[in-house]
């Protein structure tokens, strides 16, 4: 039982990271209908940039996170204005090809600049163990989960409560009506892309402080984010959170009781089962698109 609780705790911790990372993907898909295959590379850039600003520029973790978020927001904004803008309204395929190309470009550019070795980001807290009853976690992990939760909550409040968030939802539901209300929809799209980039990059930097960051990580991150988004329902905010936690826990239990070597298979099993039994995911946003 104690072991089970430990696996469960580990799974929930990992699941929070999956949720944060998938949130950026589902936001960009749900609000903009762009399937962003470069999502994992945005995550990777967050990690690599985080490593660069903390170890080379000597910033502390928090300042580093803010700088990385600012850089990635600008980067996401530019990607939308310069690249995505050109294929907007032409269906999903051109966007898919464009972001696949972008992911290859980003991964190889990063490879050229940062090399293949994994980089460790210095976290703000030690990896000292914390005992919660029978469960052991580290301070850094608890801290990272708290930051993830804060970012998720922040994104939720931004979308539900602010004027920009309302403009985002209006643009998603009916871009023409949004234009007629005076909303500059091009800016809304760029802001959404910037927000998705910030979420992905923040997840990358937090995880880089717990494990390490590597320029080749993008593919597997995209894959897991897609698993979460398919499980939770494309474009669903709550779905990304629940999906992330389910994937994290499922992987932890599989790793604990079955085999650690084949943990990544869990995601594929989940995707297959989801597509067979709940093809639109657990919390599909389809009902919203009347």
């Amino acid at each position, binding site marked *: 039982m104690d072991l089970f609780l430990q696996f469960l705790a580990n799974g929930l911790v990992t699941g929070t990271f999956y949720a944060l990372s998938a949130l950026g993907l589902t936001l960009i898909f749900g609000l903009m209908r762009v399937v962003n295959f470069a999502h994992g590379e945005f995550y990777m850039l967050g990690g690599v940039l985080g490593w660069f600003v903390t170890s080379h520029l000597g910033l502390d973790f928090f300042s580093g996170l803010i700088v990385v978020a600012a850089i990635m927001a600008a980067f996401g904004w530019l990607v939308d204005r310069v690249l995505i803008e050109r294929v907007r309204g032409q269906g999903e395929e051109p966007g898919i090809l464009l972001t696949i190309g972008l992911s290859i470009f980003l991964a190889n550019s990063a490879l050229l600049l940062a090399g293949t070795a994994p980089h460790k980001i210095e976290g703000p807290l030690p990896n000292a163990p914390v005992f919660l009853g029978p469960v052991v976690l580290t301070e850094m992990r608890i801290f990272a989960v708290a930051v993830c939760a804060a970012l998720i909550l922040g994104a939720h409040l931004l979308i539900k409560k602010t*004027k920009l968030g*309302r*403009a985002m*939802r*209006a643009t998603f*539901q*009916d871009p*023409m*009506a*949004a*234009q*007629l*209300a*005076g*909303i*500059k929809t091009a800016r809304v799209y760029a802001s959404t892309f910037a927000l998705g980039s910030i979420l992905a990059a923040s997840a990358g930097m937090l995880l880089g402080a717990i494990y390490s960051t590597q320029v080749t990580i993008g593919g597997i991150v995209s894959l897991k984010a897609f698993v979460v988004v398919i499980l939770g329902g494309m474009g669903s905010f709550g779905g990304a959170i629940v999906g992330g936690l389910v994937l994290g826990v499922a992987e932890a239990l599989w790793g604990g009781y079955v085999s650690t070597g084949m943990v990544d298979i869990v995601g594929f099993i989940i995707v297959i089962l989801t597509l067979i039994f709940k093809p639109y995911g657990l919390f599909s946003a389809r009902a*919203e*698109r*009347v």
Partner: protein
Amino acid sequence: MNHINPLLHIRDLHVAYGKAAALHGIDLDIALGEIVALIGANGAGKSTTLRAISGLLKPTSGSITWEGKNITGWSADLVVAQGIAHCPEERHIWPAMTVKENLMLGGFLCRSHVEVEDRIGMAFHRFPRLRERQKQLAGTLSGGEQQMLAIARALMSEPRLLLLDEPSLGLSPKMADEVFEVVREINAHGVTVMVVEQNVYNALSVASRAYVVETGRITTSDDAARLLKDPEVLNAYLGA
């Protein structure tokens, strides 16, 4: 019509969808305080004219002048900021947002939160049904309520000119009458209205003047009352 003071002045307006020309040189004028109807068969170019005025479509040539200012080719957000609101065909409310959120967004360009709340209060005063349903998702409203919401949303920008596209589409005759009653009331409060309708009798009964549009051109313009009594016009252009 008061020719000295045209609020909106359109000359030789051409609009094309890709290579297919939809408007072949439209001339029209709207004076302050009028209700003007644009009538004609399906596909004649009525909606296209409204979409060109509100900035959803860029004209290929011609000019649109608003209070002496050339606004030809301006984007939609700039046009609405000038005081022209467009309530589009099929309503286009945001279905997964609440009635109140729809109204708030109608006042998107208004910077003052207090002012937006005031305007929402006025909208609720005008449309009590919307107050009752303010927390409901707009997609759950009936067709008539959705049309009222669409008009209320357009008025949230406090326009001086309201462009109304097919406000009675899909509504019962009783509901359509209510909508046109609202249009008269809005006009009585000083908002100039340009209404596009396929239902000629409705349009001509609310409007003071009308333009008849046929395949991208204005073919007739006259007092509404006179057009309403002219069976030849109705038969020839509208198949009524």
